[in-house]
């Protein structure tokens, strides 16, 4: 059965190791924060200039000058720091962020990512995504496996304008976990209730099957 948005976020949170500095994209990736176990020491970065994102504020704590990159009001953790956008992207571009978890519209067999131009809508701009995909040590894309009309979003070649070429390391969808390897795409995990054939049917490129193929472990 397809994983819910929350389950995708829960699986994505398993990518995060203790000690990691992580940047979570806008949308479902933001939900990932809710699934990071309390015993892991993780610092979340927001590209508008904050290291150490805390939980959403209570009504009393709301500060109009404290937001994340999704423009949501937030709080800071103990040990947080704020800085300019130049410093923030120096941090990102310089490879200091261990992991970036981003949404996607298409990912190609070579790890190209398209996620900034929505077909039929006005182009809103790349924001910080083009910097993040090159800067983070590891890029994980989370998205639905298929588009609303059932077309594969994992493709031989992206049809939408690219955010970055050869930048994605892993894709987590509602059906599977797939790695982008030198040799092509490798199916690592399958959501409960699906077969390898089910996943291959809605995936553009041919998948290699990992010898350790597992079920996605989510609640």
């Amino acid at each position, binding site marked *: 059965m397809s994983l819910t948005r929350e389950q995708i976020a829960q699986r994505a949170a398993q990518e995060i190791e203790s000690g990691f500095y992580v940047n979570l994209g806008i949308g479902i990736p933001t939900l990932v924060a809710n699934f990071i176990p309390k015993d892991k020491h993780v610092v979340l970065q927001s590209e*508008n200039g904050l290291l150490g994102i805390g939980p959403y504020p209570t009504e009393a704590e709301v500060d109009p000058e404290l937001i994340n990159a999704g423009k949501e*009001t937030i709080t800071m953790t103990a040990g947080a720091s704020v800085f300019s956008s130049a410093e923030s992207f120096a941090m990102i571009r310089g490879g200091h962020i261990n992991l970036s978890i981003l949404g996607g519209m298409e990912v190609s067999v070579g790890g190209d990512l398209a996620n900034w131009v929505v077909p039929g809508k006005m182009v809103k701009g790349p*924001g910080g995504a083009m910097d993040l995909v090159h800067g983070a040590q590891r890029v994980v894309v989370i998205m639905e496996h298929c588009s609303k009309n059932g077309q594969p979003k994992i493709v031989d070649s992206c049809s939408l304008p690219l955010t970055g070429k050869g930048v994605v390391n892993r894709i987590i969808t509602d059906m599977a976990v797939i790695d982008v390897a030198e040799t092509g795409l490798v199916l690592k995990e399958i959501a409960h209730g699906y077969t390898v054939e089910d996943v291959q049917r809605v995936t553009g490129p041919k998948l290699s099957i990992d010898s350790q193929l597992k079920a996605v472990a989510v609640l």
Partner: protein
Amino acid sequence: MKVQSSIEEAIKDIQDGASIMVGGFGIVGIPEKLIDGLLRKGTKNLTIISNNCGIDDYALGTLLSTRQIRKMVASYVGENKEFERQFLSGELELEFVPQGTLAERIRAGGAGIPAFYTPAGVGTKLAEGKEVRTFNGKEYVLETALTADFAFVKAQAGDTAGNLVYNKTSCNFNPMMAAAGKMTVAEVEELLEVGKLDPNFIHTPGIYVQRVIACSGYEKRIERRTVRASGGN
């Protein structure tokens, strides 16, 4: 001296066709009062360099309604319907820059670096026509510095020498813009005598700020008020 007595005085010499950098991310850390001044002054044909373009009835969005902006250089302009209308009708010119590249191009402008290489955008539409070069086996695109006739920045506190201190995530693009503007105007919520700010903790040294003005009555609108219940998280 640097201290201005009114917003009008602070922006008196801005002409039609000027380029202006405007601090802020979303609508946080924006120079509210200077934007209002520009609206009242009615200066037209502006090139605005700013990460975003405000929202429909607030911040830079107001200058769109009055058609004062001819060209926008930004990384993301999502929250503005009037923007979309003017862009689609061809009234408004738009240059998209990846956010980190925008920050670094402005930083380069203030720092006398004419150009630098960055990986962001390589292989995408935004690098089309630009030089791509390989360093240590990885491709990078050449990006050039950005400067502007004016920079509008907003700080929490400033002193009469133009030193500035920002509050939390209202810092964002303000420090680089202060340095990259040929004429930088800073609006501050608290204007202090020199010596009141700790020299160890100045975010923008006064050398970058040509004019400073104390303002009050900030609206500080919130774009996405997200809260949790008290006690939980």
